[in-house]
């Protein structure tokens, strides 16, 4: 009766699923797609970083942020600033009235590089900023909100407002940020041309490796006692508090972790797509990212990756043929998921498909084990979650 309660990093089943996703991302997609389409999927995968963070914050911890685009954007802008400075050599910008500064600054009658742009001449600084800036910003928001016990719908609305404010700020400060066009015309990374097909292919794989690093980090958190505490907090916050935990610090931590993931995703977006703009920061992309996680399954980090790929692939395919229908379709999809499949594709897989497959193979006497739910579902809170309300608006 002595049951082994080891906390394994991956169960055998999870290891298989990780392996399958690795096969899809490292083998199947690169082999099946031409370099244009592969780059497109590389772009989709940068959103998956955000979705993984949302699984931890929202699925596990019950903290719904509708402003993850902010962190994606901050990471993306940090990377874009470095690339823009590298592209703005005095020779390349000789025709400007002030050569050596980014073109959009020159257009806005700015005559010297602002002091806060200076450090972005350094690649090392910029790479650190890709993670640190979103984390620092998330930390400030987290302390301000969670210490005051702001949560639920209020938190969701505030994060959404922050996304809106940041977008307006970026657009308004055109001379410093490139305004509504964003930071464009990025060329090289330490002299390496990132616009070639070959470079894009390499960046796709760099992105994939980083994605798996984040997946492993997320898996470690889920497996740790902190992961179980998040679930406990989602269901019985007071009980956790009165078991001697400072609930706010755990929320701040997971929110910052999600921001770090999003920042890395944003930087990889900039590198692969070649620009960064406020359209990736605001309310709409932030909500879309929540939908990716919801469709994939907000309790499953792997599900979030599949959900991101699937929704984006559908978006590209459908919006090519029916551009005006896409947003409607996305909204309907979200409502359908929240109402009928609260655990998304991952839930559908582990609750519907797997049990049937097991039954099918049970006859052979294989030791059938119950499915290991990625995160125990909180079915009660699913239909009336803030996201559902937000979607209904």
């Amino acid at each position: 009766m002595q049951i082994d309660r080891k906390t394994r990093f991956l169960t055998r089943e999870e290891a298989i699923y990780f392996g399958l996703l690795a096969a899809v991302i490292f083998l199947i997609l690169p082999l099946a797609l031409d370099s244009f389409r592969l780059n497109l999927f590389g772009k989709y995968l940068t959103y998956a970083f955000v979705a993984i963070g949302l699984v931890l914050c929202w699925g596990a911890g019950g903290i719904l942020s509708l402003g993850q685009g902010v962190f994606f954007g901050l990471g993306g802008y940090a990377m874009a600033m470095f690339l823009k400075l590298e592209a703005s050599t005095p020779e390349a910008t000789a025709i400007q009235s002030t050569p050596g500064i980014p073109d959009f600054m020159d257009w806005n009658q700015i005559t010297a590089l602002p002091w806060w742009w200076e450090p972005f001449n350094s690649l090392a600084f910029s790479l650190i900023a890709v993670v640190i800036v979103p984390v620092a910003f998330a930390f400030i928001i987290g302390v301000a909100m969670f210490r005051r016990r702001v949560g639920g719908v209020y938190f969701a609305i505030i994060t959404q407002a922050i996304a809106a404010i940041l977008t307006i700020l970026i657009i308004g400060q055109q001379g410093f940020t490139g305004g509504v066009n964003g930071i464009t015309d990025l060329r090289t990374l330490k002299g390496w041309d990132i616009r070639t097909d070959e470079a894009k292919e390499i960046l796709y794989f760099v992105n994939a490796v980083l994605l798996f690093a984040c997946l492993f980090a997320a898996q470690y958190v889920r497996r740790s006692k902190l992961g179980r505490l998040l679930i406990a907090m989602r269901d019985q916050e007071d009980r956790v508090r009165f078991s001697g935990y400072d609930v706010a610090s755990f929320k701040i931590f997971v929110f910052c972790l999600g921001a770090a993931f999003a920042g890395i995703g944003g930087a990889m977006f900039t590198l692969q797509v070649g620009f960064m703009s406020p359209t990736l920061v605001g309310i709409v992309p932030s909500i879309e990212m929540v939908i990716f996680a919801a469709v994939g399954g907000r309790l499953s980090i792997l599900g979030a990756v599949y959900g991101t790929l699937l929704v984006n692939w559908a978006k590209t395919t459908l919006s090519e043929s029916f551009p005006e229908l896409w947003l409607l379709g996305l909204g309907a999809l979200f409502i359908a998921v929240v109402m009928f499949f609260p655990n998304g594709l991952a839930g559908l897989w582990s609750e519907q498909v797997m049990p049937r497959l097991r039954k099918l193979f049970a006859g052979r006497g294989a030791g059938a084990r119950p499915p290991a739910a990625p995160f125990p579902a909180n079915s009660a809170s699913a239909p009336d979650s803030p996201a559902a309300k937000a979607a209904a608006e």
Partner: protein
Amino acid sequence: MSIHQTSFVLSVEDLTVSFDGFKAVDGLTFYVEPNECRVMIGPNGAGKTTVLDLICGRTRATSGSVRFKDQELLSMREDQIVLAGVGRKFQTPSVYEDLSVFENLELSFPRGHGVFGSLFFRRDAEVKDRIQEIAETIFLADLLDEKAAFLSHGQKQWLEIGMLLIQDPELLMLDEPVAGMSVAERKKTAELLNRIIDHRSVIVIEHDMGFVEDIATRVTVLHQGKTLSEGKMDKVKNDPKVIEVYLGH
């Protein structure tokens, strides 16, 4: 006449909380000694739960003082109060339904309570042995791997008591631990409580008079946020004021 004597585990003095002018607890003073089991009784709405809420920091007091072994609790955060040694069971059972009984107990194990402490927490033999030991005490040893959602009401109450026991608090506060239990469960719980109140101070809120008589060292009768009577059970039981507002019906 405030007594600044350190021999008390808990000294509550002039404790008052006002909700928009309504004083749910009004100038309450009482002291709990080491190893004492203090039972609080009183009609519905008397303010019993609110007193526990004030002690453990869930509700902020309007005025007064709550000292636990020379620490002023009123200025401390909830989790700091818990780590100082005050455990609290809620009136409705609150356990983590999505986690197993084992995991429920593990989260209360007094180690790794910081962010990084819990990130790098190791489930070692000490943890497992202690959980096994507690599980046997609370009659749940065979259900360690069961999800807490599948437990009966009484079992959930026991689990929550177990979650407190594993913290090993010096002061244990229980809000109606036998409410909603079957007769058999009640008996088992009384036996359980008698065992665990042995070497610690306990404040219990309870309506069941038979149960109270069984475990109480002293009794405080609360009425409209004030002490109506206090002392040994047989003294309180025969107090005409108590009979009038509480025991009479």
